[in-house]
Each structure stands twice: as C-alpha cells, then as structure tokens.
C-alpha cells in the first residue's frame, strides 16, 4: 500500500485518501468546482456535467463528482477546455426552459443563475425549448414550475435517498422527460408527504414554496437558527425573518440531528406565529365572558386568588401543569415557583400522558429514563425493532434515518404493530399483535432467546442482575402460548427472536403504543430486559430508544416539572437534594412528599385541589376521558391558563394569560435524544404577550417569592449549578450544535451513548413482567378495540396546526380508520359519517376503510376538537406511572342517519 497518495490540482499537490473523489479533494482544499446535481448526503449521479475537470492524459473531460482521485493524477479545474464545456452546458440548460430571473422567487439562491453569471453565459445561443408541462399549484405548499426544471435529479434524490419517501421519480424519456409522482398525478394525489426536501434541494426555481412568489427574497431576510417547536426530534432550522415576520423556514444543513431535513410541520407549519387569533392581552372572566385586562390587574388577581386558596386550604390545594412546549429555563422556573413559591410538589406536565411509563420503567431498569442512543446512531444498527411507533408520521425525521438504514446500510427492520403503518413497507418482518398484548410477545422473544441460548452471556453476567428471575418469569411464554395471546404465529416469534438476538447491534425504538397502557411500565421494562439480554446496551447501533412526542418533553422532565423529582431526577424525598435546592432557592424548607400526577389531579385524589395554574397545556383535549377532566376543571375555585391561543381548556379559566411562542424567546429545548439545543428569538411577540418565564417571575414576585433573572442564560447557569447531568451545559458550548446530557463538567462534549461501561444505577436490573390484558375488554355491547394516535399533518391538540390553512387542507377532519371486514359487518361504506361511542361518551366521525387497519380495531386521531377522541378513551391508569390507557378501550360505532 502506498504511504501517501497525492494528486495535483491546478499544479499544486494534495493528499487524498483512497476512495475520495476529485471533487471531494478539491472541496476539502477550498478549490472551487461548480456543481449542480451533486446533493450532499446522496451518491453522485454525474448528471449535470458542470463539475467536469481536465485530467492530463485523459481523452475527455471527467466529472469530478464521480472520478476517484488516483495517484499522480494531474487535474485542471478551470482550463479553457473546461470553461468552454461548462459554458456550453450552461447554454443548453438555459435553453431547456423559461429561465427568466426577474420574477423568479429563487433569484439570489439559484445555482443556475449564479453559474451563468460566473461564466458569463447569456443563454442566447440556443432557441428556448417549449416546455410541454404546465405549472402545478394544486397543493397547499409546493409549487412546481416545470419550465424552470433542468432535470438535475436532486429532488428525486432528496425524496428517495434522503427522506426515503419515494414519492417522485424520473418519468418518460428524451425530450419528454419529467420529474413525476406515481401516475404523473399532482403531488397532492401521490405518496408525497410535503416534507419539502425537494424544495430545499432544487437548485433553480422549479420547486418553490407555494407562496414564495413575491415574498422577500433570500438576501432581504435574516436567518435565525432555532429548534423546531413540534415533535421531540428537535430539528435545527433557520427562520428567515423580515419585517418582524417569519417568511419561510429551511432545515439547517450543517447541524445534527436533522442535517437539513424537516417534515411538513417544521417546514411549512409556522403561520400560527403570526395568526390573528393569538392571545394578545390578559383576559379576565366576568359573568361568564372574558374581557381584556392589563397585566397588573390580571396578575394581581391571580396572585390574590392563589394566595387566598393557599392560606385557606394549604399549599397542596394548588396544582400546576407546566408545559412540554416551553423551554428548559421556563420549566425550571415554573417548578421552582411551584415548590419554593407555592410550597407544593403538585406539578406535572403532559409527559404523564406519553412517557411517564418510560421514565419509570427505564429508570428502574437502567437508572435513566431516556433514549440510550442518538438519532444519527441508527445508521450503525444491524437490526432495528420498531414497536408502538408510527415513526413516519409522529417522528418523520427519525423515520428517515430508519428508512435510510434499511435502504443503504442493509439493516433489517422488524415492525411490531397492529396497524399497517408505512414503515411496514420497509420491514423484513411485520408482526401484528392483538392490541394490548405487548408484554406477551416481548416475553415470547425473551423465552426463545434464552431457550436457544442466543443471549449475550458475558453481558448478562458482568453487567446485569436478576437474570434467574427473568428466566423463571418467561418460562411460560412459549411460542404456542404467545401465539394464543397475541395472535402472532409462533414461527414468526421464533424467527424474530433469532433475528434480534443474531444481530451485532440491534436497536429498539418505541413510543406510545408501548407506553399508553395500564401495563405501560411493564411493557417498557420488558423491552429493557430484551435489550440487556442480548447485550444491546451501551454499544453503537444498539439501545432502547423511547421516541418522545413534544419538542421539550424530555427537557420538562429533566427540569423537574414532575411531582416527585427536582431537576435531573433528584428525588424530592431525598433529604440531601431537598436541602441543596432549598439553599439555592433561598427558602427554609421544601415539601418532601411527592405531589399529585396530572392524572391524579383530575381524579378523586385531586378533589382537594382548589386552584390550578395550567401553562401551555390543553388537558380537556389531551387527557383521557375528557368529560371527567371538564368536570374537574369546573369544580375548581380558581383556574388560570397561560397559552398562545384559546384552547378547549381556556374556556374553563378565570384568567387567561397570553404567552410567547418559540419564535419569540430565548432558551433551550432538550430533544428526544437528550440533546440540549438553543431556541432563539426571531420576532417580537404580538400585543402584550410575555414569555412564560416573564409571567411566572412576575407572578412569583407578587406572591412574595422573588425570582429575578436578567436572561434565560442566567437561568440555565442556575440549572447547571443544581443539576449534575446539566452541570457542563451552557449557551456558548451550544452555539453551533446541541449537547447531549449527561454533561457533568463545563467544556465536556456530553454523552452520546448511555451506559457504556456501567449503567447509571450500577448493574442493569432485569425486572420480570407478565402479560396483563387492557383494563377494559371488548364485549357484546362494545365489540371493537379503539386505539388513538397522531397524524402527520396535525399536531397534538392542534392548537398550532389547527391554525395553518395548508395543513388543514391536507387533514381537515377526524377520520376513523376501519378494516374492510369490520366495515362490512357494520354495514358501513367508505367516507360514511358514524357515531362512535364508548362507556364514557360519543363523537361523530367519518370512517375510512383502510388496508392499514386490523380487523376488530378502529383507529382515531386525537387532534380534532370537534371530534375529540379523548371523550371516548379510558382514564384507567398504569399503577406505577399513572399513564392512562389511550391505546386500548372497548368501542362501538353506528351509521349516523
């Protein structure tokens, strides 16, 4: 082997490593070679011929994006032959359509325009081709102007190789070539999910956002780097701002976790920021009507009422719901105010409804209840087990990594899900379990793995405790028995067990399908058992990875917006922690008993609660059994709700306080992979609205507990001071890219993979679990299962997405998914309006007969206030974590006359 490999570029020598292309060597050394079709992250296609270079001794010019660097190669990047070739290529491209720039929204960021200018190509050499295809503008987000398409194929690669949505491809041939969706239909009638990756990849104005025309162009706006406010992936993005308006959003190409990728909500779902429906002034309810009020009056009223209730009924008569949408800093302040100011541990947030069972389950198995590995680490997995997660809709950007791992890295995907979710198309195995039987199939896999001796004995011996108990507990879970319970054929159980155990590195991804059961914590523990058994913890490409649903639900948990812990999961019952917090917070003592969970607050246990402060949450829509929640809210003496919009919950408030959204404040969010990332202010808030931090500090001052901070940075400094896992995290280190906690020392890089040499709790705990059926069973009266979940185009209770016209065009109303067999037996036809009812209430919804639905089960999205699925759901909870059983209850439906 050669010790050094060198090529000469423009008469200077450069080293290269084997496999590098000429273009890569040039770019690494800051030598300019123009490219059009080369897309970062995808393999080169050599389609555009712009990157040609002259190689001495070679007969023709070579595409540098393709050509591997070779020892002794002499390359010229701007020889007259090269320049002539590029000029001709540009002339041809310019004649390929209608490339007039004056009215083109891409002006200023168009590669074709830039190169024509650079090489002084007027585009007059050849006659302009008549483009036979008309502009497509029949969807809410993406405009396709085929007269500006140069068929470079970047959009196809963006769609197929980066996002792996496979919605578009090259169609027809020769002069008729066109980028097409299936059937050459408009995007809205195709598999397109409007992620907009094609738009970001398009080097000309052929794909632009629908409203790009006559909006400010790239040089007129200022980019503000921030974190997406939707799901827990935490995509980094740039808000392009002009005149205090967010004009558009682009994915940050240079930053993890998304490297430029976004989904439809992240890229196009920002109109809510400037919605005229935003709350702009505090509102006080008088005689059943809200009237606008000043901050002084409103806050005085809130402080007086909370103070009165506290004095009269004690601090535990008050409860606070903090928000997984707010920043870490704000969550820290809210729980500090609750504990030190109000004097109660009655604080919780919506993590109770999504991953409290994860925090409890993984916490006791591993010592830490968060994703063990990172998003980008997915590419190192040989086998990926996805269960109870409709990843392409709920965490679209994480799904791109899973699909890429299957398509490009040869990973095997195992999907265990009753619904025929999109990921099943990429799966090597798809197991369809009966709803609520997860512990059974997981134990079935463990049974087979132990029986066949496929487990990692060394890992089990050296890193874990409780193997024998596990062995005993799964003894009964033979494939035959598991087939009876779950409906999964035993051969598939055995086969899947072998695949999982046989992998060098196998990762597990799960979400609400596992957690939202009365046995949610046990389900999580069972997955943890499976991963530990095969030594898949603490290694690259392994792990147990709960996908968290909200932008900052991880952070809100980390910050102690939970009834039993302070920041970093330091227990309120631990005296040392309590003394440390009391000292930092300047109070004599803090309550030592854990407070009520959010589900308890709305249950009989919460009857002692007289006053509530709800920040950025909408329990009327999001909690199980809405009617029950409404009754509890009505029964309060005083309710204050703080939000950016009116919600179904603000209707019950005595005072409504207008808050700022993510684009209007500084701070940080912690994403699902424990990465703490910056949130930056891009625009001024509307009207009188203030940040959650400003409001809670002002309220706290009025109630006699002073919280005074100059900036969110100062708050984070305090968080770092009292939280070992955040001790090394500060704004300067986060400037370019977020940091994974634990990061225990300033200047440290953070921890990407947890439990590498030792579990957070020392030895990993095998915690045997057994199958336990859902709390409510199907019967004659309610013969179907109901499961609830998310759609791609809406988000949570649709407070934000409900205000975005385009998203509502794509997913306008609640549609229940039903199998053809069930539709037939109920005598229903596709699109029919039905009444869906459970023991708790009823809603009206259209049905869709879908191949995704499994017979015996209907699926409802929970986003729509007019057909609120949670009117139907069961509020029975998991005893350990308090999570309600959103994923299984008994339901019936009938045709609506």
């Amino acid at each position, binding site marked *: 082997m050669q010790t050094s490999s060198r090529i000469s570029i423009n008469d200077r020598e450069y080293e290269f490593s084997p496999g590098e292309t000429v273009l890569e060597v040039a770019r690494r050394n800051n030598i300019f070679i123009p490219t059009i079709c080369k897309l970062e992250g995808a393999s080169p296609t050599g389609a555009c011929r712009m990157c040609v270079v002259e190689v001495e001794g070679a007969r023709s010019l070579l595409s540098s994006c393709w050509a591997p660097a070779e020892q002794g190669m002499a390359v010229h990047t701007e020889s007259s032959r090269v320049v002539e070739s590029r000029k001709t290529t540009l002339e041809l491209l310019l004649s390929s359509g209608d490339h007039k720039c004056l009215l083109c929204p891409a002006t200023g960021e168009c590669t074709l325009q830039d190169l024509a200018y650079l090489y002084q190509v007027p585009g007059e050499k050849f006659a302009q081709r008549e483009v036979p295809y008309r502009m497509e503008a029949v969807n809410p987000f993406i405009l396709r102007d085929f007269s500006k398409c140069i068929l470079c194929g970047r959009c196809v690669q963006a769609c197929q190789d980066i996002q792996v949505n*496979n919605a578009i491809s090259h169609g027809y*041939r020769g002069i008729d070539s066109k980028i097409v969706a*299936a059937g050459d239909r408009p995007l809205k009638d*195709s598999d397109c999910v409007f992620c907009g990756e094609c738009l970001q990849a398009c080097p000309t104005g052929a794909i632009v956002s629908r409203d790009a025309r006559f909006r400010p162009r790239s040089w007129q706006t200022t980019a503000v780097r921030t974190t997406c406010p939707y799901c827990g992936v935490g995509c980094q993005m740039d808000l392009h701002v002009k005149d205090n308006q967010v004009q558009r959003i682009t994915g940050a190409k240079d930053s993890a976790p998304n490297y430029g990728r976004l989904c439809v909500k992240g890229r196009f779902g920002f109109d809510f920021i400037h919605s005229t429906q935003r709350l702009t002034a505090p509102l006080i309810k008088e005689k059943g009507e809200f009237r606008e009020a000043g901050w002084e009056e409103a806050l005085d009223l809130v402080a007086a009422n909370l103070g009165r209730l506290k004095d009269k009924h004690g601090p535990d008569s008050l409860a606070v719901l903090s928000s997984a949408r707010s920043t870490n800093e704000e969550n820290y302040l809210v729980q500090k105010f609750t504990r030190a100011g109000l004097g109660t541990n009655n604080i919780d947030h919506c993590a109770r409804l999504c991953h409290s069972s994860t925090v409890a389950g993984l916490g006791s198995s591993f010592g830490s209840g968060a994703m063990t590995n990172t998003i980008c680490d997915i590419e190192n997995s040989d086998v990926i087990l996805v269960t109870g997660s409709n990843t392409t809709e709920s965490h679209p950007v994480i799904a791109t990594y899973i699909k890429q791992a299957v398509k490009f890295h040869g990973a095997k995907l195992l999907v265990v899900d009753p619904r025929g979710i999109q990921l099943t198309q990429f799966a090597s195995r798809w197991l369809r379990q009966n709803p609520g039987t997860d512990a059974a199939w997981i134990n079935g896999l463990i049974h087979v793995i132990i029986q066949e001796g496929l487990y990692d004995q060394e890992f089990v011996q050296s890193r874990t405790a409780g193997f024998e108990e596990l062995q005993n507990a799964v003894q009964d879970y033979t494939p035959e028995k598991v087939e009876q319970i779950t409906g999964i054929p035993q051969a598939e159980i055995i086969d899947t067990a072998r695949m999982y155990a046989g992998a060098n590195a196998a990762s597990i991804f799960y979400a609400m399908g596992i957690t939202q059961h009365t046995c949610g914590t046990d389900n999580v523990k069972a997955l943890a058992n499976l991963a530990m058994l095969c030594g898949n913890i603490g290694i690259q490409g392994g792990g147990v990875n709960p996908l968290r649903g909200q932008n900052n639900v991880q952070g809100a948990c980390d910050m102690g917006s939970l009834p039993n812990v302070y920041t970093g999961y330091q227990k309120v019952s631990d005296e040392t922690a309590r003394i440390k917090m009391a000292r930092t917070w300047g109070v004599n003592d803090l309550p030592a008993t854990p407070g009520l969970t959010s589900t308890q607050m709305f249950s009989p246990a919460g009857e002692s609660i007289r006053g509530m402060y709800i920040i950025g949450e909408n329990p009327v829509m999001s909690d199980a059994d809405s009617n029950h929640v409404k009754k509890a809210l009505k029964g309060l003496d005083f309710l204050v709700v703080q939000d950016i919009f009116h919600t179904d919950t603000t209707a019950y408030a005595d005072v409504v306080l207008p808050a700022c959204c993510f684009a209007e404040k500084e701070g940080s969010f912690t994403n699902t992979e424990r990465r703490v990332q910056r949130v930056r202010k891009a625009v001024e808030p509307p009207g009188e609205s203030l940040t959650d931090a400003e409001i809670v500090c002002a309220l706290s001052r009025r109630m006699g507990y002073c919280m005074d901070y100059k900036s969110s940075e100062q708050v984070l400094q305090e968080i770092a001071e009292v939280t070992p896992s955040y001790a090394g995290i500060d704004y300067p280190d986060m400037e370019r890219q977020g940091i994974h906690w634990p990061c225990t020392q300033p200047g440290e890089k953070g921890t990407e993979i947890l439990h590498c040499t030792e579990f957070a709790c020392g030895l990993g705990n095998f915690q045997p679990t057994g199958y336990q059926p859902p709390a409510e069973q199907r019967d004659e009266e309610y013969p179907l299962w109901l499961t609830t979940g998310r759609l791609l185009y809406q988000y949570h209770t649709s407070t934000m997405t409900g205000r975005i016209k385009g998203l509502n065009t794509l997913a306008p109303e609640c549609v229940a998914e039903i199998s053809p067999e069930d539709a037939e037996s109920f005598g229903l036809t596709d699109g029919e309006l039905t009444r869906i009812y459970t023991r708790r209430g009823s809603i009206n919804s259209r049905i869709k007969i879908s191949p995704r639905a499994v017979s015996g089960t209907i699926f409802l999205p929970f986003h729509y206030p007019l057909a609120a699925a949670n009117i139907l759901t069961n509020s029975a909870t998991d005893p350990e974590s308090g999570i309600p059983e959103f994923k299984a209850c008994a339901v019936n439906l009938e045709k609506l006359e």
Partner: protein
Amino acid sequence: MQRYFRPENKDIRENMWQEVDGIVRVYRNKSGGITQVLREAQDVVGYLPVELIDYLAAGMNIPKSEAFGIASFYSLFSLKPKGRHIIRICTGTACYIKGVKEILNRLEQVYELKDGETDSQGRFSLESVRCLGACGLAPVMVVDGRTYGSITPERVMNILEEHP
C-alpha cells in the same frame, strides 16, 4: 383483503385481476422483477392503466413512483388503451423519401388516427417507428406483426379494411 383494495378500472375484469395477482406472486421476491410484471400484466390487460401500475407496485413492494417511471420510460409499455390492431409505420429516411408522410395523412383523414394514438372506435393504434431494416421495400408498414412493403395510401386502405 385484496378484493377490497383493487382500484376500479373499467378495462380490468375480475379474471384479469386474478391473472395479475398470479403474475405478482411469481415475481414478488425477485429484485428487478417489476419490468417483467409490467410486461406480463400489459399482456393481460392490453395496456397499463396508472391504477394497475400502482397496484403492481404495491404488490411488488416498490415505490409507485418508481414503477411509473419504468412504465413511462420504455416504449414497450403503453399507458393508454390500445386498439385491436397495432399499425407500425416506418418514418426512417428511406421510407420518408418514398412518401410515408402521405400515408400518415391519409390515416388521419380516414380514421382520425394520429401518431402514437388510438382511434375513437378502439380499432387501430398507430406507432411510427424508425427503420424496420427493410429499406429495400420502403415504405414499410407492420400490422399486427405482419410486414407489408412498397405500400401506397390506397394499398394501406385496402389492407386495413381487412382488419375490422
């Protein structure tokens, strides 16, 4: 399950769907099998309606866009219904010089048949081709696989009238 999700298309009858399903079963796990599946399904149905391409793609578990890309790329595939008789007329240099243009004009006048299209009765489909390798017989026409040389507009009319 499948019967619920077969797309509606008037040209595809129940027995055709069964044949199509059989074809998919044969090639399902063969990589690159889609081209064969498209060809054989076209033989069954006569052409490739987009609904059928979608259905085949789903059956083969490949992206629908990719299947359409392939179906629209190869001239072997037709996305439109074909006539009962396929006319191929050579428009290569020799045939052109020998007056094939007049024949094409006549077809348009008499049957309203344009290149690449099918007449409204579904009787004829016309495809111009480049050189059938029989330039000595120019102009040349192939009807349903049978070759006719030295054709004139009148002769063409006579031949076609034998194809009801």
